């Protein structure tokens, strides 16, 4: 349709459309966003799958993420090397999951990974404390933080092992009225 573009082949675009929740136009727009972060690094031709990564500093400075307390975690979770350096694939992946089209289950899965700071597949107290401190910018006292974390575990921990597993988390989060994105 319409405007010609030479960044991707038609097959690539189709594949991306199959793999994300985006339309063709959105993918191209996202590519523009990606490229705008570092025009000197990102080539205008992706037909040959160039191996380009943008460092976390660039990703984290996007307006969408700039003010997000979890930006580093988000970048880490979605990047393939786990350090926040993103290829275009990772980039598309991230926005696909964060887009409003993505189903709750998928979002819950990634949300869990984002909150799981130490990557042990469980949300334990240290994770919760970190989350809380990021959310409140360390403005709660230590006692308060501890109490909130205890409450959280108490509320959501179904199998009672003192930490939240993915199931616990999903069980809790999909019922939240605010959990949209």
């Amino acid at each position, binding site marked *: 349709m319409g405007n010609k573009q030479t960044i991707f082949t038609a097959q690539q675009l189709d*594949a991306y459309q199959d793999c994300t929740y985006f339309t063709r136009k959105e993918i191209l727009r996202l590519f523009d966003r990606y490229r705008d972060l570092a025009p000197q690094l990102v080539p205008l031709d992706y037909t040959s799958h160039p191996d380009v990564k943008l460092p976390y500093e660039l990703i984290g400075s996007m307006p969408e993420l*700039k003010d997000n*307390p*979890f930006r580093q975690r988000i970048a880490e979770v979605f990047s393939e090397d786990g350090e926040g350096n993103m290829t275009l694939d990772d980039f598309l992946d991230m926005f696909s999951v964060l887009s409003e089209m993505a189903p709750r289950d*998928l979002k819950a899965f990634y949300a869990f990974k984002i909150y799981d700071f130490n990557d*042990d597949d469980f949300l334990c107290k240290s994770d919760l404390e970190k989350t809380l401190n990021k959310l409140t910018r360390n403005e709660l006292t230590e006692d308060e933080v501890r109490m909130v974390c205890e*409450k959280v575990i108490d509320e959501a921990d179904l199998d009672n092992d003192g930490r939240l597993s993915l199931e616990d988390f999903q069980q809790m989060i999909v019922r939240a*009225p605010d959990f949209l994105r």
Partner: protein
Amino acid sequence: MTTRTRARTKLPRGNEEEERRRPRRKKEAKLRTVMRTAMREKGRREAGREEEGKEGRRRRTRRVRRGTPRGRTKERTKERTRGRTRMMTRTRRRRRRKRTTGRRQEVNFSSDSGSDSDEEESMSEGEMARLMEEVEEKKKLIATIRNKPWRMKRRLTHLREAQEFVDKFEGALGKGKGQEVKWIKFQRDFENFRTACIPWERKIKDVESHFGSSVASYFIFLRWMYGMNLVLFGFTFGLVVIPEVLMGLPYGSIPRKTVPRAEQPTAQDYSVLTDFNGFCKYSVLFYGYYNDQRTIGLLKFRLPLSYLMVGIGSFGYSLMVVIRTTPTSGGGDGDEGEFTFAWKMFTSWDYLIGNAETADNKYASITTSFKESIVDEQENQKDENIHLRRFLRVLANVMILCSLGGSGYLIYFVVKRSQEFANRDDLSWYEKNELELIMSLLGLVCPPLFETIAELEDYHPRIALKWQLGRIFALFLGNLYTFLFALFDEVNNKLVEEQSIKNASIWAMKEYYANFTRLSNDSEATPPPMDPSDVIRGPCWETAVGIEFVKLTVSDIQVTYLTILIGDFARAVIVRFLNYCWCWDLEAGFPSYGEFDISGNVLGLVFNQGMIWMGAFYAPGLVGINVLRLLSSMYYQCWAVMATNVPHERVFKASKSNNFYMGLLLLILFLSLLPVVYTIMTLPPSYDCGPFSGRAKMFDVIMETIDLDLPAFMGTLFSYAANPGLIIPAVLLMVLAIYYLNSVSEAYQNSNMELKKKMQMARDEEKNRRNNTDSTNQVMKDLEDLLPNRSLAPPTRNTPRGASVSSLSLPTKTKPGKGVNLQKDVALASPNPNAQRPVVSRPPGPRGAGPGRGRGRGGAPPS
């Protein structure tokens, strides 16, 4: 699952490798040969060499039967089956030697049972079925691959593999695959097109990122309204206005389409036109212009019927759309208090915020809300706080009710007075405009007053917004109905007036003809018709009502836009530029920048829509005006909010507020339906204007159509259907159905509650069991139930727990959302011989973020 997929995907790859080795000449091999050879080869492999010939023949016949649909898609499938072609037309020896493993693999992965010992025929049937299943599965994978939490690279490879697989085998399986691919492509293109058609997506996202989703919800609502009004506009203009313009009598042909002679000198004055008098009054914009001819033009378009149908149909359409958009899963507000803290922690961040200032506000609000909950949690048992709050809430409601009642009485009083004034001529300017003045004054004063009072209540802003909306709604409703009653008075006056004018007009007409014959002394000649602008005509109450609504809408537009311009823009300019030379900080101090007034704007929109619904029947042009208004206000308000407003102090998410807006809209729809239906059903239409003139009631048009245009049996059918003997049972039946559905839904709700309770109990039990403190707790619980002073905490809510090894790190095992009694955590039961102890028995010291560090704790499985 993964390993299976991997195994499956081996085959296509193998094919590719072979493809490279294969000479290109095989490309042209025909599909049928391919299949035959393949099956023959397979048969030989499995059943033995001596059976080969027979088997081949049998298979060939079946292939022929099956091949027909495939033949059609041959051209398309040729490309796809190339790989398979090559693979299968190889010499058998080579194949047997080389491909046995690959083939087995295919059998294995296309069927997990993989029983090769079946007899030949059913075997291949079975394999076909399995292959088909396989392809289906792959297709499903392609459709849902975006839902898999995989890395993009992995997803891409899987997608490619699955697609190749499907491509390869689907053609061979004889499906019309080309069609399907085209269909998928079309669907995707259509989807792309559809999303490209959604207007203002970026604008709204922009606003959303700056102001949070609550402000954006207003704009989404506005866009939705625009869409709905566009459809209404299409109906009204396509079926009423444009036919009348194209096919109806032109302006000036009959009295109702002509400006009366007395008004003609001023008919084009600006002031007259802005009041929608003069030429405006006698134009297609209003009811009175339409003629009562049964059919117009060459097409015999039944305009009066179409007019009535569009009027009713737009109500029907709006009702349908509003109800459909209102999510029916009401009551799913979540279980309050079950996951208070967990939700606060994991879902309070609005991931759409992309603005530093908003983010700051959000941080502050999250911290506050956490602190609030902590305080709540700690002081849940302190009664006086709750009592105070309750008292304050009751007080606030009483005050608001008082002010609502007061304003209601004020309106009533002023309307009474204005009716008195209506009979007098010596009125001062104030007395003339008293009603409007009081109304707008109330509209200005009351909302801020309510907001101030509402601060006493101390609700969460989202709930506060709803209350505020509801209260202002009540206030506006007063305005609306005053307006309506005034209008009805006017209509009744006009109806009385009309009677006398009607006689006068007939008399004048007769006199005119009598004079003509007398003056010309020629009784044979037909007198020329009277000039249409000289005919005496009735007041045409319908047009008057239409004009009132149009005027109201236009003045509403003006007021809204001026308010934004002065209240927001001018204020922002002053604050911004006067700040350099002022004695205090204007930006942080008193005037500051305005916040976006969600409740006011939403209500404005809702009431405006009510006006449109009520007025559209009497002024078809109103819908067009409204579409223009919504369109311009989208751009204007987007600009205004981005340029002049600041984010709310407490940014909150608009979860399900849309639902609430829709509820308001539905209410307004009903309320505006009432007067329109009342006028259509009971009031007689004017005798000399509008599409229904000359009939006793407006709906007589329908009767007329049934009698004249439909076959006779339809008429009898309708007369049966309109029989009270039939209608009353129907109504009864509906009432019964409502009652039944209501009770059913209640029963479901009950069972829902029951299930929830059961889950809760199961959870408690689980916890108890794990902690091995059942017996102790049971006793404790019973004791606690008996204690009288635990009035606020529900029974059995405090489950003191043992495991007091480290009171620091152990979670307090109380019921969520209810009072924590911290002292009780310590040593009520014996130490817990629990496997989890090591996990929690360490004091939670500060830990590094490194991924490796937490992994060792408590034997958590490595990721």
